[in-house]
């Protein structure tokens, strides 16, 4: 049965908007420490990240075939379920962005689809062992693997350059940071743009507009690359501020160590087919680098808030996905339901954007002004979650 073109267009548009939020929510993953150490100016850093995210989307499409593969029964996924899952993911992404909390966009998408799936079909459609293996255990491992590597790299960085004048040390590590953070941005584009490609491809297949064996259309690749690139370019300044200045005070050797460890963890895990959240990897790296410097501190209240958000991501996005599905199901026509829920979601998004602008506007000019990188804040805990 062919789903109406209107419904497919709306779902594809929603998927691209999710890709956009994914981009700006995760700009911090690659560029927070680069901006914090002033290796690159904020606007230049996000421009570089945007270009690399765009380019990264074309490198590989090997995992773009499915959405939440091995987590839900794929044959039961319908276009309204995909839509509801996307709405759940977008809403959670915007909520955590509003509160300046780095959280996993991938987990938000999985949570949204899970919630919509449970609301539509029931818990039988969920592969619980897949959730444990693909979401929960990686989420527990990622920060520790990268954090340990970053701690070691930071100790070595400071140890090997302790007799070098600070001017040379800072300049050298800042240059290195540009390379390591570029690799993270490229990897992010490759991994995360593919997820949206998968969502759109699945929608086209489920809607009878694309054969199951057909290749991903070029316009899908291009639009996903453009959406994540644009999202990255708009700069998720709030999350950049949290990761770059509020978890710990980052110096160039720490930024380089953190980014090197993050890129190694992300690329090695991708190569071995083990999916880790980029956000959790990078956050772990920053914490490890914070602890690796003699006298370095990590602001545990900020970390605690991040950990709570990580734990809440799956159920919260799931709840929003389930509510979105119930909203769609309340109408006799899927198309009408999707339009109404889409309008409600758009209003929520506009309210969050508007509130963010009014209450605590963060931009390229003030992203690192609040906490000078040379001195730890006297009351860092209070700055944990900016609203």
């Amino acid at each position, binding site marked *: 049965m062919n789903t109406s073109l209107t419904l497919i267009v709306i779902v594809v548009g929603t998927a691209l908007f999710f890709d956009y939020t994914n981009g700006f929510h995760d700009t911090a993953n690659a560029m927070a420490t680069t901006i914090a150490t002033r290796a690159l100016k904020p606007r230049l850093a996000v421009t570089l990240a945007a270009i690399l995210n765009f380019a990264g989307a074309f490198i590989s499409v090997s995992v773009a075939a499915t959405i939440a593969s091995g987590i839900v029964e794929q044959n039961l996924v319908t276009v309204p379920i995909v839509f509801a899952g996307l709405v759940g993911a977008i809403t959670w992404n915007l909520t955590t962005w509003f509160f300046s909390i780095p959280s996993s966009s991938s987990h938000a998408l999985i949570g949204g689809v899970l919630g919509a799936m449970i609301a539509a079909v029931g818990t039988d459609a969920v592969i619980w062992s897949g959730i444990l293996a693909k979401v929960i*255990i990686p989420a527990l491992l990622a920060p520790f*693997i990268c954090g340990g*590597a970053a701690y070691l790299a930071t100790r*070595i960085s400071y140890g090997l350059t302790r007799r*070098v*004048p600070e001017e040379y040390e800072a300049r*050298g590590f800042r240059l*290195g940071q540009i390379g390591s953070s570029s690799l993270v941005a490229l*990897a992010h584009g490759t991994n995360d743009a593919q997820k949206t490609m998968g969502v759109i491809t699945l929608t086209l297949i489920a809607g009878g507009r694309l054969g199951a064996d057909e290749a991903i259309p070029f316009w899908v690749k291009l639009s996903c690359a453009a959406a994540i690139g644009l999202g990255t370019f708009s700069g998720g300044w709030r999350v950049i501020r949290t990761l770059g200045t509020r978890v710990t005070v980052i110096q160039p050797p720490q930024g380089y160590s953190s980014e090197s460890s993050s890129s190694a963890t992300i690329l090695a895990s991708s190569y071995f087919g083990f999916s880790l959240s980029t956000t959790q990897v990078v956050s772990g790296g920053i914490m490890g680098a914070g602890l690796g410097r003699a006298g370095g501190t990590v602001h545990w209240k900020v970390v605690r808030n991040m950990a709570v958000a990580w734990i809440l991501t799956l159920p919260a996005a799931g709840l929003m996905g389930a509510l979105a599905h119930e909203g769609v199901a309340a109408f006799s026509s899927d198309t009408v339901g999707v339009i109404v829920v889409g309008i409600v979601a758009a209003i929520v998004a506009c309210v969050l954007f508007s509130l963010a602008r009014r209450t605590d506007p963060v931009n390229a000019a003030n992203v690192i002004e609040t906490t000078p990188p040379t001195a730890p804040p006297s009351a860092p805990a209070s700055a944990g979650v900016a609203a």
Partner: protein
Amino acid sequence: MIVASFQDYVPLADITKIIAVCLTVAVVAPTAAALVITGFEAQASASESVRSRVLANTRIALGVAIVVAMITIGLYALSNK
């Protein structure tokens, strides 16, 4: 028993490899950066002697070569996953 159950969900062999890669990078990346940095410093403070300049340039070249090699391996991993 616990290990066997854990292995049902997580490929421990792959995780071991990932940890090994991360630890290797954690040692090699700062070492490469330190080579370049100390090379720049040596270059700036080098006397007129050819030997000290060559030594400083060699350090920089070696450090840059290691960084370039790491980025190339990273790009390979990205495109061949």
